[in-house]
């Protein structure tokens, strides 16, 4: 199973926000066991999807030079289950940035219904203290972003396409 909990980026403005989709399908084993007989995407995996989108937003803000990890889930409210057939519209906004971490606010909608509200905090691992070298194998993150249409939509604050990063 691939650990991708976003399917596609639809909008990405460096240092500002990201938008995208997560399609929920019965083909995903994750739907089977959370609530047997009532397939739904476990809320923790919706948080994971937001963390992936938010983590990319924060990482790109620092040109993918920092080791960004999810440090804290500040808030997570789920208003309705994410069921098979739902398309979740994910919206992540960069809230605050420090040299040691960042916070994002996230919304998930299914159609016009608010599905979840999530606040996340990311921290940056100090090189050599918790980790050595990059978190991803060479090219792995770039391939993942390509599959998610990241480079189709990602622009800098002036509206110009973001560069093809060679360090990911």
């Amino acid at each position, binding site marked *: 199973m691939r650990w991708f909990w976003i399917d596609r980026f639809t909008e990405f403005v460096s240092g500002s926000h990201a938008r995208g989709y997560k399609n929920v399908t019965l083909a995903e084993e994750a739907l089977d066991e959370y609530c047997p007989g009532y397939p739904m995407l476990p809320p923790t995996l919706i948080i994971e999807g937001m963390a992936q989108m938010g983590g990319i937003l924060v990482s790109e803000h620092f040109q993918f030079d920092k080791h960004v990890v999810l*440090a*804290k889930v*500040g808030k997570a409210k789920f208003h309705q289950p994410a069921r098979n057939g739902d398309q979740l519209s994910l919206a992540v906004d960069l*809230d*605050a940035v420090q040299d*040691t*971490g960042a*916070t994002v606010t996230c919304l998930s909608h299914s159609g016009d219904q608010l599905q979840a509200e999530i606040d996340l*905090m990311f*921290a940056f691992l100090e090189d050599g203290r918790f980790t050595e070298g990059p978190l991803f194998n060479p090219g792995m993150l770039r391939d993942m972003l390509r599959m998610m249409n990241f480079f189709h939509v990602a622009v800098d604050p002036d509206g110009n396409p973001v560069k093809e990063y060679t360090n990911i």
Partner: protein
Amino acid sequence: MGLSQDEIFEKVQEALVDALGVDDDEVNREATLVGDLGAESIDFLDIVFKLEKSFDINIERTELAPEDILTNGEYVKDGAVTAEGMAELKRRMPWANMSEFEQNPRVQDFGNLLTVGDLCSYVGSKVGSDA
């Protein structure tokens, strides 16, 4: 115009309740952030974000966590802060009550030094307080 002491306390209390998941009545001025309220290192980053937003201030990392002093051989000897180190800590953190720590200034105890009252004093020093 600065904020009143009570206004600062209320906003600090709100930030700590939010960041640490504690009850309002646990957050009194004497409570220590680590020992009484259970703050872990990652929570301090969260608290910094919340205070910055709530008070519209910038908080430098070394202002609340003077790791550079506590890991400096010039200021620490045999696991304890030297007199020079204490002077530097007081200069850096004039808003913190160090009277108890000063009696036995072991570096390992520094993490449990800060109280809610200290945090209020710190914020007051940044925003101006009508003391």
